[in-house]
């Protein structure tokens, strides 16, 4: 019986997963195949999270397992091998706010869903978003914020993007546990989300992807 990396990872059986990976690497199989299967497994974890079967701890844990696999596979991979990407997203927590849990989860979810994500970090001034948009030309910009005060920074960031003449080149989503449509309208974003899967659904709607 062939041990199934995809389903074993989806079930978060870390020890078994790592044993399978080691076995497959030893067998001389293309390490890229192993990595692709691992990513498929993590995508199932993401799907189970979206379906409400898994929660954030499972998501975080699957990310940790994937990191461990990447460490094992990396030395055997040819340089410059890249997985297929559907589009680009620039993400960050807006100026004045250092909350990063939600942003990190969204980044992770977008990444495993096949988007190229540029995570600027937390407490990011409007100008840095503008610079990054000019540099990588993303389809989507995601502004994260948890504090009520972050609405002002979101508004300023959207305005700065407008002032730079880039507003019609990107779709802007705002995300955070306290947001609603009032805030979305106030800051001038295209959509808002309170939960990580909202961000993935929006990116897929705007960019496409499986």
């Amino acid at each position: 019986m062939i041990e199934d990396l995809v389903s074993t990872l989806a079930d978060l059986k870390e020890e078994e997963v790592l044993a399978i990976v080691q076995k497959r690497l030893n067998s001389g199989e293309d390490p890229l195949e192993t990595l692709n299967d691992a990513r498929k497994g993590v995508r199932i974890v993401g799907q189970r999270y979206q379906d409400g079967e898994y929660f954030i701890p499972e998501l975080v844990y699957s990310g940790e397992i994937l990191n461990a696999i990447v460490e094992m596979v990396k030395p055997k991979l040819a340089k410059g091998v890249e997985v297929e990407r559907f589009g680009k997203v620039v993400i960050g927590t807006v100026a004045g706010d250092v909350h990063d849990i939600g942003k990190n989860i969204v980044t992770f979810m977008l990444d495993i869903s096949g988007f190229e994500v540029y995570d600027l970090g937390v407490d990011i001034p409007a100008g840095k978003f503008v610079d990054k948009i000019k540099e990588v030309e993303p389809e989507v910009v995601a502004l994260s914020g948890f504090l009520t005060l972050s609405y002002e920074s979101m508004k300023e960031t959207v305005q700065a993007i407008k002032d730079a003449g880039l507003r019609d080149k990107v779709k802007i989503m705002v995300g955070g546990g306290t947001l609603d449509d009032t805030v979305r309208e106030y800051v001038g974003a295209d959509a808002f989300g309170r939960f990580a899967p909202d961000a993935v659904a929006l990116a897929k709607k705007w960019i496409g992807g499986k």
Partner: protein
Amino acid sequence: MTKTAEEKYNEREKRIQDAIQLKKPDRIPIIPFDNGAYFKHCGLNFQEAMYHPKQYFGAVKKAIMDFDMDAVSSAVVMSGPTFDALDWRQLKWPGAEVDSSNTGRDTVYQFIEPGQGYEAMPPEDYDWFLDDPTDYIIRRHWPRIARSLKPLENLPPIHDMVAYYVGFVPYLPAYGSSEIRGALESLMDAGKEAIKFYDAHYSFIGEMAELGYPPLFRGIGISPYDYIADFLRGTQGSMVDMFRRPDKLKRAVEKVTPWVIQWCVNQVGASKELDYSKRLFIPIHKGAGGFMSNEQFKEFYWPSMLEVINGLINKGIVPYVYTEGIYTDRLPIIKDVPKGKVIYHIESDIFKAIETLMDTACVEGGPSGPMLSIRTPQEVKDYCKKIIDAVGGRGGFMMGVEVPMITDKSENIKAMVDFTKEYGAY
């Protein structure tokens, strides 16, 4: 005839205590938790609030009187100079001597997670923490969260210092080194600043009582799980621990549970009978919906939290459990507490909480942050009406806010207060 301050104090206190005991009060108490709206109402900003305690408390006093709230319920805005003295890593705050925010905008102080700007407790340290927690806190944890205390990582272990030639004198040279002296001096300097802050705080509480305003709570606690997850292992670390080392995580949570109870008791004192005026604020964080499943909550979070709740009630204290985040799916679980002895703050779906919890615990909640910051007074009133209608003339509810108030729209706060007093009168 106008009422004396003492009469008003007793009236407000009774209103709150009736609500906690699920009795019908004369009207719904209005006690929104503040996190800046009060001093903004008086033209003060966050930085001024953190660096000038007397001005800060003066502004809070004025706001509480202007709005005529039923209790003093404002966030523990802390002392900037205290943290400056320690080169504190665990918070970012406006006016800090280092690492202040990028915005230039005056902003609320924010907690910095372990691993984000300072090292989180690594998993291999669990054993050290479990074996000798005080040693661990002083020699590993403090050096991480306060840069001025970094030299303490070179302190020799205190448990060796039992007699003149056994540890004590041999270890003393460490205390003579300039690094450790510097660290201890920064601790003493911070202590001096803390005295100033608490002097201002206690005289404010005393003054408010004389003016007729009771404190909504007299002390602050923490859930045992958050002790580990918020402050030692961090969000990510604690989540991974649920899978990789669940027993260590549980042992650590169990270890700190009696300390948490004792810490709360130390602040407000113990009594045999439940004293409904002795309310203790316990914000809870990492057990929110999304952060873990109901099963994980029941396994890792709730048992120790329930122990704290029951432990405090047994010591005569009313736990004011401030749930942060979404608890809608957890309501049947957290309902398992003694009847009429607990206050639950609710951030998510107040209507569901009123429906589910109110026959067991006092529910507190109200308009959202965006509503108070962006919407009109009429919209705020409409929302409060919806809530008061859901309460339906019963006891067991206090009007608060969904998240601590930061709004500078005083007219929205006034709308909420005035409307609740009028429409929420029984």
